[in-house]
């Protein structure tokens, strides 16, 4: 931990110097969205000041400049997740749009009445609802692999759900409500043994775990830029080239076509086939800047530092009487979800906010997870590389004090 450049990192995030209700901000809601380093903020500003025009269109210099920067960002994303080709990197609005895209293109083309889609009991609503919509449209059936009380997927039960009717397994790499990291290698191996493709929802995992598409061999991987210290409104769909080639387009419009006439249009090749309309140009370039920033620090260093934060917060939380941790998987990312006896998470959220501490209180877009634990909501502290043990101490003191106040 001594070698991790925490002071430099904190100085790189200007918002961390904000005062909230006259107290120093303690931002523990990165699971909802991460704060942005100067590198990202400045890169977006630089685009609009010096490099902005529409891409893939003009012959003029600025358009060429913007296009080069935009495509350079695609290459940065490819490198970051070690995809085989930039053709496999599709820019979308976020993980949610990516999953909807897969459901409405791959899903509609390949999933029919009576077919089955397998998800897990810990999915975010964005990896439940698009599949329910597809099931309503096609008559396919959604199967849910259960978890145990620690919040771990019961792998054997998932495995038992796979059969010759299963057309897709769609699983969170890391749970946003519990922090659980799923055994994705085992899941992919089991599904591939039956020729079933696997989609991983990487929205929570991507800022915490280094991923390698070629080593993982998953068929689709989706994530949002804003949880990776990048801008909001931009995300990535990774898909294996052969799958993406065979899929029909998602939205029609400019940039995704080769030729258009009133009789028939032909579509552009990858990745542009799935990128209709003017994209969020500056934000894509900003995401590239976030990746450069992360590469400089190193994902392995970040993972090691965050593991210490999680271990410390868990150990401290366990000493608080009346606090129950929700989600105690063996393999877990930097999320501490908890409830307090007789104190509603929204009261916890408001009370901690008055001390400058930002946590999430609610169902975390995972109502089935709340039902499983028999709670209406939880309080969730989610950690990022810019958090410190001192901030965890502030959180724990705050929790102890509010327990006293509620009596």
């Amino acid at each position: 931990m001594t070698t991790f450049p925490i002071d430099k990192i904190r100085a790189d995030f200007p918002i961390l110097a904000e005062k909230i209700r006259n107290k120093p901000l303690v931002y523990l809601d990165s699971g909802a969205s991460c704060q942005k380093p100067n590198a990202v903020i400045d890169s977006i500003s630089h685009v609009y000041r010096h490099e902005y025009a529409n891409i893939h269109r003009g012959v003029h210099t600025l358009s060429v400049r913007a296009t080069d920067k935009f495509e350079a960002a695609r290459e940065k994303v490819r490198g970051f997740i070690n995809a085989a080709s930039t053709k496999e990197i599709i820019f979308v609005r976020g993980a949610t749009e990516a999953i909807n895209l897969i459901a409405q293109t791959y899903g509609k083309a390949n999933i029919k009445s009576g077919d089955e889609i397998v998800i897990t009991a810990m999915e975010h609503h964005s990896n439940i609802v698009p599949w329910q919509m597809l099931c309503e449209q096609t008559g396919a059936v959604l199967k849910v692999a259960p978890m145990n009380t620690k919040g771990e997927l019961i792998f054997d039960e998932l495995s038992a759900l796979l059969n010759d009717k299963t057309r897709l397994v769609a699983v969170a790499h890391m749970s946003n409500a519990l922090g659980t990291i799923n055994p994705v290698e085992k899941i992919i191996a089991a599904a591939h043994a039956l020729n079933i493709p696997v989609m991983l929802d990487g929205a929570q995992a991507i800022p915490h775990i280094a991923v390698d598409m070629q080593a993982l061999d998953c068929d689709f991987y989706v994530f949002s830029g804003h949880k990776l210290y990048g801008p909001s409104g931009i995300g990535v769909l990774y898909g294996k080239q052969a799958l993406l080639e065979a899929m029909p387009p998602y939205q029609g419009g400019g940039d995704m076509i080769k030729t258009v006439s009133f009789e028939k249009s032909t579509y552009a090749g990858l990745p542009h086939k799935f990128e209709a309309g003017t994209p969020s140009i500056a934000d894509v370039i900003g995401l590239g800047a976030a990746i450069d920033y992360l590469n400089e620090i190193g994902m392995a260093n970040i993972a090691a530092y965050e593991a210490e934060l999680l271990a410390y917060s868990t150990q401290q939380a366990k000493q608080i009487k009346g606090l129950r941790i929700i989600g105690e998987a063996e393999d877990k990312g930097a999320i501490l979800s908890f409830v307090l006896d007789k104190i509603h998470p929204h009261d916890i959220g408001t009370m901690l906010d008055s001390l400058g501490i930002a946590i999430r209180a609610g169902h975390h877009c995972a109502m089935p997870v709340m039902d499983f634990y028999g709670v209406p909501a939880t309080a969730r502290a989610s950690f990022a590389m810019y958090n410190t043990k001192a901030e965890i101490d502030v959180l724990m003191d705050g929790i102890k004090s509010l327990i006293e106040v509620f009596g």
Partner: protein
Amino acid sequence: MFEDLRELYQEVIFDHNRNPRNFRVMADANRKVEGFNPLCGDRLTLYLKMDGDKIADASFQGSGCAISTASVSLMTEIIKGKTETEADALFKIFHEMTTGKDEQINLEAVGKLAVLAGVREYPARVKCATLAWHTLDAALKNEQKSISTE
């Protein structure tokens, strides 16, 4: 430690949160409506016994945060014995008190409910306080459906 929150979390609110009044199922209720705040998961079931246009009895069950629990608890106390018109008038003043811009609310008219006036400074918590009243509004209109704040 929580000086800033004294306006929001007054002692009366803690008291009603710890010991909610009229917290029971009413077997002989003739109105029953469920209220739900999907944002925070607050759920309540409001029971009314109407005697003509008079609220003869009111009770509730459910779970929620301190603000919503205190709000519904205080509401069941204050509406007992009121006519529909009187309860509706209270609803309108309460709504204005918690969401309106007018500083000149007559807090005397709402009695004990004034302890909830602080929520107007906390937009994220206004719905916690108003859920009870929207549920009451539905019950008085004899709407048998569930009420949602969203």
